[in-house]
């Protein structure tokens, strides 16, 4: 990661908020991935002796159980894994599609650029919720559909950002030098344009992850996302809301996981942006 490397890491280290956010994210991810080995409960088993039981250490239901007696610890961790996975996959799509789309539109310019940007405008004009409901009605509910629908719109802003950067890079002399050196359009875009937009791309991708997680939770909360018996943070929160007064832990446990994850991802993204932005440092 080249020129961004050492300097940026040093500047990032100088930001305690970003560093602690990163540590907390790492801890949450480690718990989500390794947690199941620490506790015998799984996500599906119904424990009839402890239905809607509060969090205790003796019963091995560390975070309590839900209405059906399923272990909330296991379900929250599974939900966190799903949420983070969707966030990461959608960011990957947004990087792959958005960066190449934006760089091509910006570099080639002219009519191609016009056409490509109109396509983006049409896509971003789609009311997202309506779009998701529409897809759900046609194809039935499935997790893959969630990936597709989030991926379909997640790259739009990235493409716009990259196009904007590319427009200014295209005017730079080193691009003229590359043309004069006999490099073809594809090579120039891949080797001389894209590496130079990597800074904003990383930052925006980092900030995309929490956005997508939030959006996924929102869809799941509405019942459009992950379906029973699967769990995501959104479905768990939706269940928890129903029992909020009698069994507050059902809301608080997945809710605080989501809140901590989103907060830390945002803080880290902000810190990364400041660290990579040489001009304001």
């Amino acid at each position: 990661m080249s020129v961004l490397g050492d300097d940026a890491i040093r500047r990032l280290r100088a930001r305690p908020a970003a560093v602690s956010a990163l540590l907390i994210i790492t801890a949450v991810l480690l718990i989500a991935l390794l947690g199941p080995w620490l506790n015998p409960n799984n996500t599906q088993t119904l424990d009839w002796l402890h239905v809607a039981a509060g969090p205790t250490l003796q019963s091995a239901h560390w975070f309590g159980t839900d209405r059906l007696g399923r272990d909330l610890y296991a379900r929250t961790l599974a939900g966190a894994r799903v949420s983070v996975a969707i966030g990461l996959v959608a960011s990957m799509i947004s990087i792959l599609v958005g960066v190449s789309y934006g760089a091509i539109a910006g570099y080639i310019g002219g009519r191609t650029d016009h056409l490509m940007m109109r396509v983006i405008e049409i896509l971003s004009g789609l009311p997202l919720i309506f779009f998701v409901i529409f897809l759900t009605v046609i194809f039935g509910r499935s997790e893959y559909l969630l990936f597709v629908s989030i991926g379909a719109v997640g790259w739009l802003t990235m493409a716009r950002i990259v196009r904007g950067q590319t427009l200014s890079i295209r005017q730079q002399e080193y691009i003229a030098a590359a043309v004069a050196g006999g490099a073809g359009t594809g090579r120039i875009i891949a080797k001389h344009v894209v590496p130079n937009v990597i800074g904003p791309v990383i930052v925006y991708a980092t900030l995309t992850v929490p956005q997508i997680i939030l959006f996924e939770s929102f869809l799941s909360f509405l019942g459009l996302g992950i379906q029973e018996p699967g769990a995501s943070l959104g479905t768990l929160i939706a269940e928890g809301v129903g029992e909020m007064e009698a069994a507050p832990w059902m809301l608080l446990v997945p809710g605080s996981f989501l809140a901590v994850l989103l907060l830390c991802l945002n803080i880290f993204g902000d810190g990364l942006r400041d660290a990579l932005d040489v001009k304001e440092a």
Partner: protein
Amino acid sequence: MIPTLSVDELTVRFAHRTGTLEAVAGASLRIEPGECVGIVGESGSGKTQLFLAAMGLLRGHAKVSGSIRFAGNELLGAKAAALNRVRGSKLTMIFQDPMTSLTPHLRIGTQLAEVLVCHLGVSWSEARSAAVRMLEHVRIPDPKRRLKQYPYELSGGMRQRVMLAMSLLCKPDLLIADEPTTALDVTLQAQIMELLRAARGETGMALVLISHDLGVIAGLADRILVMYAGRIVENAAADELLRRPRHPYTAELLKCVPSLSGPRLARMPTLPGQPPQPGEVLQACPFAPRCPRAAERCRVEPPVLAVAAGAANATNAANAYVACHFPLS
């Protein structure tokens, strides 16, 4: 012999809201193999545009007409793929500002090796070792370490050497140097010029030196072309042009070169007036408004570039051309 570069009646126009701007107006020139040609002119005289057109670097809104042939092959209107075979290998260019001519996020080694991999299809490791040899050649100390560095870690002079190394990698037939030393200080300027001279001596390539500084060009050029308002107004062997300028504009330019040995002047001599603004309506001879020798004829009849009187002597056959009704003799 086929000239390395031959430009015929080249016109470069830009569409502009006030009308069409003519950056180059019917310029013709020939560069023979191995020849070093200097191009001088004030800012905006079209000297850079002429060669940007040759490299196919003008943006879409420039309208180029005429003909530019490189080793006999027409470059104007050629397909990008065909252009890319010669650009960067046989026909190379280095630019005015070395600070911005290298891609900032790629290592020097990658940028240098890419040229060879791209044009000659050699392996990356071969290309890297060739890059090291070429960096040594342009006298960059510790070239192996430089390959791993980024452009921002190098000074301006160093970067211009890297650019030079890059343009020499494929043994070009013609190197166009667009004000290669303008952004550098004087000692570096001398070193870069010396490198250009040496490179030309070794490879036998032709060299075009674009500059507004006659002093930079005089030491190296075989022939000097003077441009004014998009036209070539004088074209003569370097020593002839410097000793005996024929176009009044050349003469005035030469007067503006400060001399170390002459009497100390109270004021730098300057050329009165301004070069024509883009879009300005020109007189038949665009230099007429500033010319001490201008007469009525200059305002009605455009002068054409023709063999200067008295230049076609036996030894220096037809090597001085001037576009002036009343050339100095």
